[in-house]
């Protein structure tokens, strides 16, 4: 008897390729967390596929000792759709950036989500074009000064959470590169969701957009600016949890728990509530704005809905049941034939 194989470790997912991201890039942390989480998921390494488009994030597959495809700009979702339709049993991960997935690949993104293929989509959002050296991206805030917008970008930015939920994504979560524990938790949740799971990861581009998410990650500001949501728990943030969020009709309002507001009146997070998830996705204020809402992190929404590939297989099974297994000779023959002797 052979001894059972040793369980995989993070090291088993490291390739022999040099990682070529800039020193200090947030992508390193994401790579590390993914490599750490994968062995815990119990999926055979050969059944895992990483598919990416173009961009810094999209070099990801080269660094994962699994199957992988570094495809073309914006099209990872389309490639992954075909792969998943062909091989539903595979664990398919799409790695993309904000430019890749929301600009050139915007169309494929929304269609992937409405079809609900069972894949995990990681959007590394750094609100900038890194690989093409620093132009504004569809996620860059208006007024952003970059090489292609010296007077400030006049584009209204995409809100990835609202975009995903607007396209009827069945799972949306947000995490950040500087919070490894949270990220690992979210990655596991994303994997256990059956359907298209969107994980937006705030990722720092220290060369072209350094500090874009600093207020959410730095000790001094993090408490006041971030809101970690968890099902069954009230929406609480601030120093020592001194602030809460209450729903006034459909309007979220910040209340001060140290100034008489009751914890019992707070919004209790429920990730199955579509309406509340939509409201939560709109917590997208500029941190410089007065009385702005904090930025939420965690699983916003999860819903059970049939997956495209399952429906596809079901139709094939149904067709075989009613018509019988395809008989090639009968097909070639058709219905009406005649003989010439």
């Amino acid at each position: 008897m052979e001894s059972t194989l040793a369980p995989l470790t993070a090291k088993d997912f490291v390739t022999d390729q040099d990682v070529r991201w800039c020193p200090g890039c947030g992508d390193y942390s994401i790579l590390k967390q993914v490599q750490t989480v994968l062995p815990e998921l119990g999926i055979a390494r050969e059944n895992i596929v990483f598919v990416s488009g173009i961009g810094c994030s999209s070099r990801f597959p080269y660094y994962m000792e699994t199957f992988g495809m570094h495809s073309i700009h914006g099209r990872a979702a389309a490639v992954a759709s075909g792969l998943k339709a062909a091989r539903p049993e595979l664990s398919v991960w799409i790695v993309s950036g904000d430019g890749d997935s929301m600009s050139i690949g915007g169309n494929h993104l929304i269609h992937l989500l409405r079809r609900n293929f069972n894949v995990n989509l990681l959007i590394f959002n750094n609100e900038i074009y890194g690989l093409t050296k620093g132009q504004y991206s569809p996620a860059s805030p208006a007024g952003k000064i970059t090489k292609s917008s010296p007077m400030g970008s006049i584009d209204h930015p995409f809100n990835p959470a609202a975009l995903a939920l607007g396209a009827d994504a069945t799972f949306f979560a947000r995490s950040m590169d500087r919070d490894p524990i949270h990220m690992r938790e979210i990655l596991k949740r994303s994997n256990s969701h059956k359907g298209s799971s969107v994980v937006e990861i705030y990722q720092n581009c220290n060369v072209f957009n350094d500090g874009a998410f600093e207020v959410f990650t730095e000790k001094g500001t993090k408490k006041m600016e971030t809101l970690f949501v968890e099902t069954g728990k009230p929406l609480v943030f601030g120093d020592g949890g001194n602030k809460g969020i209450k729903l006034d009709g459909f309007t979220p309002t910040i209340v001060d728990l140290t100034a008489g507001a009751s914890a019992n009146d707070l919004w209790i997070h429920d990730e199955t509530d579509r309406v509340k998830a939509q409201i939560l996705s709109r917590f997208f204020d500029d941190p410089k704005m007065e009385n702005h809402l904090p930025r939420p992190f965690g699983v916003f929404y999860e819903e059970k809905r049939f997956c495209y590939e399952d429906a596809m297989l079901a139709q094939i099974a149904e067709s075989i049941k009613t018509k019988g297994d395809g008989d090639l000779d009968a097909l070639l023959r058709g219905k009406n034939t005649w003989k010439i002797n």
Partner: protein
Amino acid sequence: MSATLETRKNVAIMFAGDSGDGIQLTGTQFTDTAALLGNDISTFPNFPAEIRAPQGTLAGVSGYQLHFGSVEIFTPGDGCDVLVVMNAAALKANLKGLHTGGIIIANTDGFDAKNLKLAKYPDGVNPLKDSSLDKYKVYEIDVTKMTRTALADSGMGTKEIDRSKNMFVLGFIYWMFNRNMDNSIAFLKDKFKKRPDLVEANLKVLKAGYHFGETTETFNARYEVKAAVMQKGEYRNIMGNQATALGLIAAAKKSGIELFFGTYPITPASDILHELSKHKNFGVKTFQAEDEIAAVCSAIGASFGGSLGVTASSGPGIALKGEAIGLATMLEIPLVICNVQRGGPSTGLPTKTEQADLLQAMYGRNGEGPAAIISASTPSDCFETAYEACRIAIEHMTPVFFMSDGYIANGSEPWIFPQSKDLKPIKIEYAKERNPEDAKFLPYKRDEKLARPWAIPGTKGLEHRVGGIEKENETGNISYDPDNHELMVKLRAEKIERIADYVPLQTIDNGPAKGKLLILGWGSTYGSIKTAVIEALAEGYDVAHAHVRYLNPFPKNLGEILFNYETVLMPEINSGQLIKLVRDKYLVPAIGFNKVKGMPFTSTEIKEKIVELLKK
């Protein structure tokens, strides 16, 4: 008085009317019946791009030409012997194609003042009333009135009743050509099985048309076209796009691979999707993508997973797929791209035929991204050509273009369908599982065909990464090394060239193996060239015909063949595309013969050119 029965060897009928008059249905019904009775046939549907072009206008005319005979038929006919017109515009648009002495069957209701005006006849002119049609035999029938009378008690509204006018015409033509209506009766019963009232109404009108011919003494001639003397065998009728779909399914079934078809609807390729989606019981996965790019990318994803990824489109869609086809070239995985050509550039002539995408298939990618190209020449030939495209894609790990065009995609002909046991085997070899102690897997290590291993996810020990960035030879790692890039460019080109070792040699279709003139054609010009060459040979001209299926790479003996003739003439429905490739490769002074009108060549045009060249 009973009508006399005149026997004809072959007849071409043109059905023409308003798009919406059911012209295509009338045409296909007559075709099916003619085929079942053993005639050889060839058809040419010709319709406007608009679903419902303005009624009664010249732009709205839809036509269906059918050529059937007791002799072998290779084209829908240069002109027609019988022209059925539902209105004045249909007459005006098609009269020039009617042979002198031919028959016109006109629906008089379509020649009222309004219709004449829409057809742009001068005020007070009605071609049925003046003597302009004297050189033809004109039969005037008030189809609308008789259809309405036949259905007077049906309880149906006028609009609905008028929709079955085409059945009256069909019934009449069946009488005229001495056909029984069983096939159409069965068809109508099946088509409207959920609406018994419509079955009854259509059958009533169909029979009314037939009986009208029989009981009216106006028509004193009936025609008979006997069964053709054709190759022995069992036949069915088939359209090009349908044959393409069947070829894809057959290749998948025969090789035991799963077929994944990712596509985006476009004229005239959509019928491939329609046909494939009917056959899910073959395990066929059809994916109607959000756009052309997603369509080809999904097929690439499926091929990466070990399925046979296929996509289909027409020129504008192929343009969008270009970047992804380059990716597949770099990934070196199987991909079949069906290009059902139409007039271009841009949206061009969506419903008209052209052969103008050959250079797009050959060169339409950034960098040097060679792909194999093969081309079908008749509706039924789409089957074997599509099957070959799959075989080459799988065995050589490469994108393959399957070229067809609107003319053969929509046209139909009798087909001796093959038995699955007689189809060429297709070898699929996925790379095998490896153990940790085995040497490291090299995803770009090549076999004797220069194909790399097809290593699919789910196979232990083969974990590897592919992508669009230049690959290092054998390892597949990213490489910017100048020498490696040049080597890889050459290897990818050589891999395509080597396909020539695995395809049949070029043959001469007709005529001597050496001589004065060779007509070299490709694709849907086959029928016109064939007919013209048969005629020219019969008249003693020294001419031969070769038709190329394998366009990249060319068959190994093609150059040899070209130099066996004093002159090479290359007719193409474009400004000269294959001729560029042939001149470039063989430095032969071939003469181009080109037509870019969205219309196929007539055999007369080719014949005249042959005569012109050989008379010099």
